[in-house]
């Protein structure tokens, strides 16, 4: 049984974008703050801190979750992926990121890391989504610049152009495989 006192800092180890890392944290520290302040991974943005805006969305064991609604200690031992993992080491954008750039799907970019991580999870489960499915998942994010139309267009293009998604066409379109 893992137990940590409220005023006690404990060492929390996890895998971030393939690297095993650790830092000290109190139980009340949110994963969003742990990533940014504990591990220095500032690509994940913090908006509302109560699960509404979606800016802080990351993958934990491959599944998109709000990092502001996750305690750092809950992610102990888990695989966490953030926006920093998407581009190639030389900085080349991945197909989803490139589609966002091509379609002008971001302006200020504050909400973008969360949206990219949500759709990294969603497109891996549902390679050929309908526009309605895309909009349903996008409803978990707030963007104040774009009006969403260009984001939807970018995601549609990324879904139709990804070679992985073409070979996966038989995977089915149900968005909720857990």
């Amino acid at each position, binding site marked *: 049984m893992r137990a940590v006192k409220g*005023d006690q800092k404990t060492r929390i180890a996890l895998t971030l974008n393939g690297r095993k890392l650790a830092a000290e944290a109190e139980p*009340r520290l949110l994963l969003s703050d742990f990533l940014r302040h504990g591990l220095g991974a500032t690509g994940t943005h913090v908006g509302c801190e*109560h699960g509404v805006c979606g800016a802080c969305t990351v993958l934990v064991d491959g599944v998109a979750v709000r990092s*502001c609604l996750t*305690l750092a200690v809950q992610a102990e031992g888990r695989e966490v992926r953030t926006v920093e993992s998407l581009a190639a080491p030389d900085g080349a954008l991945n197909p989803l990121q490139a589609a966002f750039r091509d379609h002008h799907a971001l302006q200020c970019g504050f909400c973008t890391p969360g949206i990219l991580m949500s759709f990294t999870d969603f497109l891996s489960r549902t390679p050929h989504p309908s526009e309605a499915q895309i909009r349903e998942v996008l409803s978990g994010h707030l963007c104040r610049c774009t009006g969403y139309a260009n984001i939807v267009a970018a995601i549609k293009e990324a879904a139709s152009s990804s070679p992985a998604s073409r070979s996966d066409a038989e995977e089915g379109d149900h968005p909720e495989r857990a």
Partner: protein
Amino acid sequence: MKPRPFDYVRPDTVDEVLALLAEHGDEARILAGGQSLIPMLNLRLIDPAVLIDISRIAELDTIRSDGGVLEVGAAVTQNKLLARPNLAQESALLAAGLPFVGHFQTRNKGTVCGSIAHADPSSELPLLLAMYGGEVVLHSQRGIRAVPAKDFHKDMLTTAREPDELIVAVRFPERPRERVAFREIARRHGDFAIIAVAAAAGANGAVTLGVGGMAGRPVTRAVAVHDAASAADAIGQWAEELEGYDDLHASATMRRDMLRKLAANVVAEVAQ
């Protein structure tokens, strides 16, 4: 905002959870998916001394279909239940209502039992449990009991759970051959519903209606549907009886109006 300090405990078994609940009682909160609890911690609406994290207890992360009852364990996420291959055949109304629970991203972590424990009056899962006439299974060191939905949900954020009890599972009786409909009105898809309405029609043509967001807890009623006019009369009378309530999102008058329109729609859907 950030939570106030609390002690964190992650037990490995249900027995350890029950011992912790016996020790800490209402000073403790159960953390499963945290999609209702952590917002309340962040906003400092609650200030528990201890969080008991049950999310890694394997025995609670199971869905069982046994003797015509679907039993969902306390660590099962909403998306895990929704991904069950035969859900639409076993429990069509669950399959229809679950996509309205929060967002894709919160359903990945939020649990079925956690939403029922939280007991928000406009949330979908308490309404679905009421529609099924399901029950909530509670364990404590004193024993085990199963509480029917109508007795479990008492009022806004208020349930029959005692401070030393853990919800280990909820049970939905399977209704394979039922025509169902689920609709709600929310400011944004995935946000809390202002009004959520469900309908189920059995083989004999009787229609059961349920509504969340009109009272402190979900309410159901059997409605005789001979034709559209008689259904509209029955729904109108129901709306007047329930009254509804005023809050930031809608007035009671607006809620009654939404109920009349949504209920007529779902009745028409299941009557087809």
